[in-house]
């Protein structure tokens, strides 16, 4: 239930914020979450950061081919995740949403399996790292082409509206994504149909090296909602509770038939765009350092501490548990072993075409002729 005080104003000049840097609560309403929930949120932040760091490490060790760090985006993603009804609402994420996937419960073994392309990957090793997906959790499997998932998200939301079960969809993307034609097509169709969907922009102000000023002439991204007849909200994306409450109220509004919304969460990515990037070419280290000062995890911990019920001991225990969890997951994912070569021929369509069958036969024959192990 959303109280009146928990409804927010669209198109505000200043980002919506509920906790300040020191951890103090700024809200016009009391935080109505219990300790268990708040601690679960914090655990997700810490776990996501730990996973992130491990992925960077695994990439350096050559165990995974690529990683796109979510560090700096965690509050936005975890706040969003907790506002969802997991398993009912649909999630259309993008490649940087590992914290979101973790916070809705994506099993870590699947996560690392996906990253390593082993048999632990529910998607059978089909995609490069950082492409989450889960049928059970209604996470629409990530595709690399920027913004290409948005029209599908709108379609799912329209289907939800037709089904009338009061479910909603969340669709996330970066600031760069807002320039794509598909982004426009999706928001416009959702607006025209009043579909129950919240579009969430994780605005870290860079699309690889291209800064926001080269990306668009608009003053921020929330204002783009004007073009679709939906409200646009500017939110401090380093403030987990601001993200959570805004998303909770908008999802409830969507479920109530009030239609779509656009949320801009201002975040920062601490790492390079990906393991293939060198951000020193286009970002001032001082800028990165300044944003590091505003680490979303630190801020939320301060809030917990200030509120009471969180102390050094709890912190130590959490960190140790998280490390164990990550260690175990990595190990299990790796132990699952590589996917067989011939899996490459499966899942193209409901039944393989005669054309593909023939290709597979010739492939097998060539391997046999070369003395390669066909079973593998």
């Amino acid at each position, binding site marked *: 239930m959303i109280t009146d005080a928990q409804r927010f104003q669209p198109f505000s000049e200043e980002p919506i914020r509920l906790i300040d840097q020191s951890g103090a609560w700024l809200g016009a309403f009391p935080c109505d979450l219990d300790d268990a929930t708040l601690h679960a949120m914090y655990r997700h932040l810490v776990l996501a950061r730990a996973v992130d760091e491990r992925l960077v490490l695994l990439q350096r060790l050559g165990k995974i081919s690529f990683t796109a760090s979510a560090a700096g985006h965690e509050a936005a993603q975890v706040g969003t995740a907790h506002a969802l009804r997991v398993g009912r609402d649909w999630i259309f994420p993008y490649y940087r949403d590992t914290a979101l996937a973790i916070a809705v419960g994506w099993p870590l073994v699947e996560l690392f399996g996906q990253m390593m392309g082993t048999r632990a990957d529910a998607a059978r090793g089909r995609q490069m790292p950082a492409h989450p997906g*889960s049928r059970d959790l209604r996470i629409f499997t990530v595709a690399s082409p920027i913004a290409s998932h948005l*029209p599908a998200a*709108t*379609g*799912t939301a329209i289907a939800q509206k037709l*089904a009338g079960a009061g479910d909603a969809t969340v669709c996330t993307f970066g600031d760069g994504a807002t320039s794509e*034609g*598909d982004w426009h097509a999706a928001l416009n169709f959702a607006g025209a149909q009043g579909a129950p969907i919240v579009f969430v922009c994780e605005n870290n102000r860079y699309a690889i090296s291209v800064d926001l000023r080269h990306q668009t002439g608009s003053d921020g991204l929330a204002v783009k909602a004007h073009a679709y007849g939906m409200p646009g909200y500017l939110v401090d994306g380093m403030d987990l509770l601001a993200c959570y409450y805004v998303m909770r109220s908008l999802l409830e509004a969507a479920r109530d038939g009030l239609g779509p919304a656009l949320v801009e969460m201002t975040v920062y990515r601490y790492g390079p765009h990906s393991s293939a990037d060198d951000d020193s070419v286009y970002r001032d280290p001082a800028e990165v350092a300044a944003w590091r000062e505003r680490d979303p995890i630190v801020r939320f911990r301060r809030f917990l501490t200030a509120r009471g019920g969180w102390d050094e001991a709890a912190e130590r225990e959490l960190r140790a548990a998280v490390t164990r969890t990550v260690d175990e997951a990595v190990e299990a994912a790796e132990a699952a072993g590589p996917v067989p070569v011939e899996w490459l021929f499966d899942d193209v369509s409901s039944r393989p075409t005669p054309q593909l069958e023939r290709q597979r036969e010739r492939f097998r024959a060539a391997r046999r002729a070369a003395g390669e192990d066909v079973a593998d």
Partner: protein
Amino acid sequence: MALQTYVQTIARTLMEEMRRDERVVLLGQDVGRRGGVFLATEHLFDAFGPDRVIDTPLSEAAIIGAAVGMAVHGLRPVAEIQFADYVFPGFDQLVSQAAKLRYRSGGAFTAPMVVRMPAGGGVKGGHHHSQNPEAHFVHTPGLQVVYPSTPSDARGCLQTAVRGDDPVVFLEPKRLYRASKEEVPRDVDQLLPVGVGVRRREGDDVVLVSYGASMRETLQAAEALAQQGIAADVIDLRWLMPWDQALVLERVAAVGRVVLVSEAPHSGSMLSEVAATIAEEVLDMLEAPPLRVSGFDTPYPYAQDRAYLPGPNRILYAVQQVLDY
């Protein structure tokens, strides 16, 4: 049974499918109250209302992409692209999303959906209302592609497409929309299996392979040949991916001479695939080169609308060449 045109058959078949399965929804530009610019969705808005017959904004990416999302949520969307030429703004949604969804999710998600689009020339529409883009889809693994040439085939293939579990690109020969009429059964299932072609004529002198709109000229050519005492075996591929390799190879091997006909641009066309496969698989049975009679490597012209099409004369000329070889 009364005669029914091709486009009426589409509308009627959609009506039946929507009655049969309430998960079937339509979306596209003008598919609602207007009943489609060709009337391929006539009466459906009145019958099923705006929730199941959805007029969309003018965006092919929205149409195709939303269909993917609807399919993922359990619906059976049938999307209309107003002209096949206008699929390109939504091409990425077909290629990057619809076609690859099953694969990239390891089978977790699928996109059972149909994307209908009127294709082909001969309607004085110039190059943006006349194209035949099937080769692009054939070269996109994960898509099924079908281009039926008759009303009853359209019905059978549409039933199959709507009830299947894959994304299907469903091309309709717009110049036959009204020109092609048949007695078409109603209210009975007549699903035509995926990937199965059909022999329209039997003969031992030459095999003609075609599909879609060009079937008409191909059959006209076959008729003209018959007048000259030349018996053509005529294959209508119907499905272009998968396509009926077994049937084509069997007939070509038996006859030894083949001419392939379609109106898409020559280079890199569906015909190139069929010809290459013939050369690969039954080379020794060929008495003459497999010749392609196709559109040209030009945009589709306006003033020379008919000249661009592979008409009977061009087909006959190629047949003469393979017979004289």
